[in-house]
Every structure is written in structure tokens, then in C-alpha cells.
């Protein structure tokens, strides 16, 4: 079976800095693939190259059989690859329900649909879907609160709901639990485990090893723009290369 996401020889430089050098990564359908690595290793750059925020200098990103390089972000979204950002990207002026209705509408309406005379009040299906996504992240009680006014942890869970409501083929999560209290972190892990059972493919960037080892089927380690190891959690745990990359870093700190 061919991988759902195939990152092939991707390089990206900023000025003289090699953010990514010849990165190769394959994500199989249905798996939860964690990308770990020290700060500045290029994890977020890699995700940005996948969703069209950055264009890689060389190499290709093949998703579901199509090369995503050079595609518009909205087309990548409709191809089924959806990203949840590291710093919460929400609609601060709308309420929570509307925040989730927007991606639900995107799923239904495509990149553009001109329906100025359709009543929003009659969009019960979209509303119900958004509400149940909010319930999944336990935010349904606050549906009519302004998204700009909720806590950072809640914003992250809101954004997760915004990603989930689109039922993507591949969900890219950029540190989904950063900035969350321990209780919320555990709740998010449980939620992500549930999604895993639904068969949705996920790529997770994460610092928190507790999260990584409780969720990941496979782990890739990124250091200085290169994949230095890739394998099952056990293989990674015992890899001398990984220990070196991590321990080297922690001695510096």
C-alpha cells in the first residue's frame, strides 16, 4: 500500500540557514505519526511545506497521490489535509459555534459558494455537526461565548474541533497540547485516541514525550533539518542516535 503522505527529498533554506535538508518521510494511512525533535529542528517548517504556507526549494510532497507543492492552501484543505496550528488560529470575533460552523461550511460549500439569500438559521445540519464537534472537545456549553475571550487551552481545543469537523483524511497537529493544563492534556490525549480508532491519519508534532508515547504508532526524529531516525516508539526510545541528539541538547540547556 502506498503511503497517504509521501514527503520526498524536501529541502528548504532561509537565507543561509538550512531549515530542512533532504527530508524523507512516509506516513501510512490510518497511523498516528509523531515528529519529535529539539527546538529549531524544522518541525513547523516541515508542516508549513505540507499545507502550502511555504514552498519547498526542492522535493515533493505527495498526498493521496497528488503533488501538493505549489497548490493553494484552500485546495490542499479540500484534498483532505488539514492543519491545526501551534498558536491558536481561530476567528476571535465570532462565537465558538460559528468558529466551528465555518470549517463545516467549507467542507460542504467548497472553495467558493455565493449563497447570500440562504438563511443561516436554517443550516441545522451544519449547526448540529459543529455542535457535536464542540461537544467532542467539551466546549459545547460555551458555544455562544466569544472565541477571543476564552483561555489559550480552550482556544487550542476549539481549533482541534475546527479541524475535526472537516473529517480530514490527514490531520496535521502542531503541538496540540502545548499551553494546556495537565487535565486538559490528558483529555486531549483521550480525544486523539478516540479519533485514532476512527481511522483518521494523524501527524503530530509534539514536545511532550508523555503525549508522544501514548499516541504514536511511529515516530520520526528531526534534528537540524534532517530525519535522523524513524521507527516504532520502542525503536526510537532505544536508538543511540536519538539519545545523542536529545541528550546533547539537554546538556547545553
Amino acid at each position, binding site marked *: 500500500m502506498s503511503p497517504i503522505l509521501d514527503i520526498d527529498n524536501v529541502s528548504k533554506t532561509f537565507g543561509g540557514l538550512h531549515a530542512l535538508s533532504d527530508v524523507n518521510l512516509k506516513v501510512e494511512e490510518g497511523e498516528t505519526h509523531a515528529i519529535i525533535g529539539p527546538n529549531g529542528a524544522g518541525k513547523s517548517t516541515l508542516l508549513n511545506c505540507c499545507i502550502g504556507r511555504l514552498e519547498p526549494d526542492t522535493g515533493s510532497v505527495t498526498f493521496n497521490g497528488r503533488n501538493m507543492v505549489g497548490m493553494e492552501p*484552500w485546495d490542499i484543505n479540500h484534498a483532505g489535509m488539514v492543519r491545526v496550528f501551534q498558536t491558536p488560529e481561530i476567528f476571535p470575533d465570532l462565537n465558538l459555534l*460559528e468558529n466551528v460552523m465555518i470549517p463545516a461550511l*467549507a467542507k460542504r460549500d467548497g472553495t467558493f459558494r455565493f449563497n447570500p439569500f440562504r438563511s443561516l438559521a436554517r443550516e441545522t445540519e451544519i449547526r448540529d455537526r459543529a455542535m457535536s464537534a464542540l461537544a467532542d472537545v467539551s466546549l459545547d456549553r460555551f458555544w455562544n461565548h466569544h472565541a477571543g475571550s476564552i483561555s489559550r487551552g480552550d482556544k487550542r481545543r476549539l481549533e482541534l474541533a475546527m479541524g475535526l469537523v472537516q473529517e480530514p483524511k490527514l490531520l496535521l497537529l502542531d503541538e496540540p497540547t502545548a499551553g494546556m493544563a495537565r487535565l486538559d492534556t490528558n483529555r486531549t490525549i483521550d480525544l486523539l485516541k478516540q479519533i485514532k480508532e476512527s481511522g483518521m491519519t494523524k501527524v503530530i508534532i509534539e514536545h511532550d514525550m508523555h503525549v508522544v508515547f501514548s499516541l504514536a504508532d511511529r515516530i520520526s526524529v528531526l534534528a537540524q533539518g534532517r530525519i535522523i531516525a524513524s521507527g516504532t516508539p520502542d525503536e526510537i526510545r532505544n536508538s543511540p542516535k536519538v539519545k545523542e541528539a536529545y541528550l546533547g541538547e539537554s546538556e547545553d540547556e
Partner: protein
Amino acid sequence: MSLKNNLVVMLLFSAIVLSAPWWLAPIGANYPDLLQKFAIFGLFAIGFNILFGLTGYLSFGHAAFLGVGSYTAVWSFKLLTMNVIPAVILGTLVSGVFALLIGWLSLRRSGIYFSILTLAFAQMSYSLAYSVLTPITNGETGLQLSQQDPRVLDAMAGIVPTEGLPTTNLFGMPMSGYSGFYFCAVLLIIGFWVTLKIFRSPYGLKLTAIKSNTMRMKYTGFNTRPYLLSAFVISGMFAGLAGSLMAVTDPLAGAERMQWTASGEVVLMTILGGAGTLIGPLLGVGIIKYFENIFSALNDSALRAAYDFLPAGLADFLTTVTSPFVGEGWHLTLGLLFMLVVIFLPGGVMQGISLISRFLRRRLGMAGESGGAS
């Protein structure tokens, strides 16, 4: 009975607009000229609000569409018929096409660059109307009617003016005085219904989401350009409709209608009333047009008469101090008013109203049910 119900809103709105000649009488604002202005600028502002209020894109060039609407309407009077229906329809459509062109070019940029581009295009239209386009616009004199105009449709119907200039009409009903106001009022009601539908549609929600976080919209799967362009064209068509109505009530068109000050005025009205709210822009129009009417009519002798009851020295002093703010200087008053609103009520008059109603509700201990208009 809730303001969430469109029918309730429309009935209420229609009643208020159609009864305006009656309830505006006590403040002396019930004469047709001013009422027409309220309705025409009301259409201009609610249309502008679809672009600025919903998407946050601030156009400084909407006067261009106002001008195009006026010119088109006058041409329709000259070439086709003095009936206002074709004039209004053509004015709206031609402005729409013009807005499509300017919007398509301007929307390549956002923020201040977008505003500057629209301003530049409007000023270009203004200059062109004075120079190269003189055959169409009649330059400084302005486009006027003449008895010899072909008026093809009227001629076919056998309507030939005998003496003087023909007047605009709706199937024979003259479009001056109160009938002119009611024609504008009906179009305002229709225009308001369109904005109400847009505000409460998924399309409208997406426009507000673009204002809130454009980048997020793109990664959520929306191509934001066509959304912005369609909103731009709709608001341009509203401006064109307003422009053609100006020609309906007074059938001549001049380039000054396209000047940037006219674009600035609609921005002021929208912000003053409350951008992004349904009726805020209309309140802004009402306030500005009403006070313009009062303040610009005042002069030194009227001021002196008002201060008559005071001792002579004090009256002289007050006259000297306040006279720069009235008459020609009315814009000084407007500037002050605008500054006060932007500093203390950035949400405009609508924010003031919601603050007061929240305060009163708390005072009266009315918890729970809140049926505020969105």
C-alpha cells in the same frame, strides 16, 4: 416577536421608513429634499457596510460608483426614457461592472494598500470625467438634460415634451416631492432586505470570518478572493443605485460626485453609526445629513439671534467662538463629532445604544431574555 425573525424586522423597518415624513415633522426634517437624501445616502451606506462592515476592507473609492450610477441614469434619461425604472436598473448594473473591474485590481492587496488603490482609482475616474471623458460626462458643466434629447422609448410611446425640460417620472408619476421620497424609500426597504439576508446567510458569516482572520479562512478551505470581490461588487452596485437615485430626484450629474470627499463621507457615516451592524450606517446617515442641514444653514446673524438673551458682550464672544463651526464650517463640527465618537465609542452610535440598554436592563433587574438586533 423577536428581532431574529426577518419578517418582524422588515415590517418594523418598513413602518419606520414609510412613516418618516410624519415622525420627522417635530424636528423639522420632514421635507422631501432631506427625506430623499436620507434614503439615498442610506442605500449608499448600507451597501458600503457590506464591504467594510463585514469584510473589514476599507474602500476610499466608493464615490466613483456613485458617479457612474448618476451618469448612467442621466444618459438613460437622455437616450431612452424619462421613466426612472430603466435609469435605476442601468445605473446599478453599470456600476456593478465598473466595481468588478476596480475590485478585481484593488483586491490584489489588502489593508492600507487596498484603501489607497481604491482611492487612486476613484480619483482617476474623477480626473477622467473632467478631461478625456468629457464627451460622456460633459466635463465641468455636468451632464444635463435637453429638450432635443432623443429619448427613444418615450418617442416610440408618443411622449414628446412640449415646453421646458422633461421631468423624471415613474409611469407618469413625477419623481419630485414626496412621491420621489417614497420611490427612494421603497428601494431603501428592498436594499435593506438584501443586506439583512446577506448578514444572516452563510455567505455573510464567511465574510465576517474573513474580517476576523483572513489567513485562517484560506487554510480552512476558502478562496477568499471571490468572496471579497463579490462583496465589493455588491457594495458598488448599492452605490450605483444611490447615484442613479440622485439623478432621479435631480436629473443632472457632475464629476464632483466622484470626489474623494464623497467617498470619505460614507466612511464617516458608517463608522459614526457603527460599522458591521445592520442599522448603524443608517443612523450615521441620519445624524450627519440632519445636522449638516441644520448647521450649514446657520450663519452669524442666526447665532447672534440665538444668544440674544445673554448680555451683549458675552453674546458677541460666543458668536465669534461658535461661528467657525456653522455654515461653511459645518465640517469642523462634523470632525469634532467624529473624533469624539471614534475615541469614546469605537463601535459608533450602535455601541452607545447597546451600552445604554445593557445599563438600563441591569438597573431594572431584567435578567435573561435579550432580543438585541445583530
